[in-house]
């Protein structure tokens, strides 16, 4: 008995490290005749941090929004989170109830925060766990307090969103997404709507999450941040992945002309 306790199986640790958390296979999305995603394949391991960059209209936000089905992917697209399919190959057969359940595994943070303005910060964080019966109210309150403390907002728990700065609102939104203990976090240009002096406080929170081992997928214009936290950078153009690799390669030694010209514009002043 004692022996087993003393020697945790190394194999388990390795499995854990390389566990596939996200897999997109042939992801397509059209709005009418306009095909925005042209068959994207992408996979992420547990704990991996990936940033998607690219010009506006390249499909990066749509890609993110397809993962939790805020946009319904075209028929034949496959999205796997933690080894199980989200939705259905045939959108007509996806069940709303099943989607709602799977979405709790996928945290999402939006450009415009989208906090519920009629609730206080802590009520925003508590809402989803309460709705899904993730414990008693005191337990959920304790969890929400812990999460708000983690994003540095212990002093602002009973404030309404209108009483918070953009940076504070976005940190509440991150805490709200974390409250469901998601396996994967999606960040859709979360600092784009912020005043420049408020960007850092949000980036700091996200960096902390990355260091804690959260699997994170960013769509971002913050090149310095992407370089700093990402294990991998993906450059998208015209609804497809044009280039991907470690930040040191994609950002510093891009292979494609289009990546190069995008970066020369995006990294101006860096």
């Amino acid at each position, binding site marked *: 008995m004692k022996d087993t306790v003393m020697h945790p199986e190394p194999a388990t640790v390795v499995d854990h490290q390389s566990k596939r958390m996200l897999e997109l296979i042939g992801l397509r999305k059209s709005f009418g005749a306009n095909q925005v995603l042209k068959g994207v394949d992408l996979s992420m391991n547990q704990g991996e941090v990936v940033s998607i960059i690219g010009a506006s209209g390249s499909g990066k936000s749509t890609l993110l929004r397809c993962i939790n089905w805020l946009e319904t992917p075209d028929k034949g697209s496959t999205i796997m989170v933690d080894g199980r399919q989200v939705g259905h190959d045939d959108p007509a057969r996806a069940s709303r109830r099943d989607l*709602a359940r799977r979405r709790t595994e996928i945290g999402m943070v939006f450009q415009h925060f*989208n906090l*519920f*303005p009629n609730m206080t910060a802590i009520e925003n964080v508590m809402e989803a766990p309460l*709705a899904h019966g993730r414990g008693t109210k005191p337990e959920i309150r304790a969890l929400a307090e812990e999460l708000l403390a983690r994003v540095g907002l212990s002093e602002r728990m009973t404030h309404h969103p209108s009483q918070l700065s953009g940076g504070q609102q976005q940190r509440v939104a991150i805490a709200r997404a974390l409250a469901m203990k998601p396996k994967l976090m999606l960040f859709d240009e979360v600092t784009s709507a912020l005043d420049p002096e408020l960007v850092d406080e949000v980036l700091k929170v996200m960096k902390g999450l990355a260091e804690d081992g959260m699997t994170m997928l960013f769509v971002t214009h913050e090149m310095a941040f992407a370089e700093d936290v990402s294990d991998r950078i993906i450059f998208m153009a015209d609804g497809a992945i044009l280039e991907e690799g470690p930040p040191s390669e994609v950002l510093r030694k891009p292979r494609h002309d289009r990546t190069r010209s995008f970066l020369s514009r995006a990294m101006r002043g860096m």
Partner: protein
Amino acid sequence: MSFDPTLIVEAWPQLMRGLETTVWLFLAVMILCTPLSLLVALARLSRRRWLSRAAGTYVNVIRALPLLVILFFTFYGLPSLGIFVSPFTAALGGMVLVTTAYLAEDLRAGLMAVPRGQFEAADALGLPQARFVRRVLIPQALPIMCGPYFTRAIVTVKATSIASLVAVSELTSASMAKVTETYRAMEYLAFAAVAYILLSALIAVVQAVVQRRVRLP
């Protein structure tokens, strides 16, 4: 011809009974229409095609008909189908039918004014639809709905006068009864006018109170 206020004093009991009926008819209509119109508004916004179509058809047909025609239907039409109800009930039924259609559109506009991002945030959190409606959608739509809702209430309080044409002894009917009885119009009509103004003013006061309470922080 002079204005003789003593006529109003003499007819006070009859006029007050008429006013009382107006108030009860109005309150009954609003109490029934408020939840019904919210359901119709939500149905019109539903993703279920058949449901939104059914609600849309109801609204479009009913609001195309004059209230008086509908009251004639419920007053003269129902008995010919073997359904006998009191004039008050017939008027109430007709007014609920009509007011629900109008009010549903007012409330739908309020629901639609809630930003799309709120729906997306709720979806992303996997909030069940009923909870989203109760906890997020309605609280945010209420401040927007307030103005149209109470305007509709004022329209409704005045529309109760049409019930006088289907034998309901409400305020207008009671006043007109005195007019035909005495051939004195100004006194009784003035009473009715002042009563309608006071009712509307009361509704405006309630609106101000409610508006303060549902305001978003």
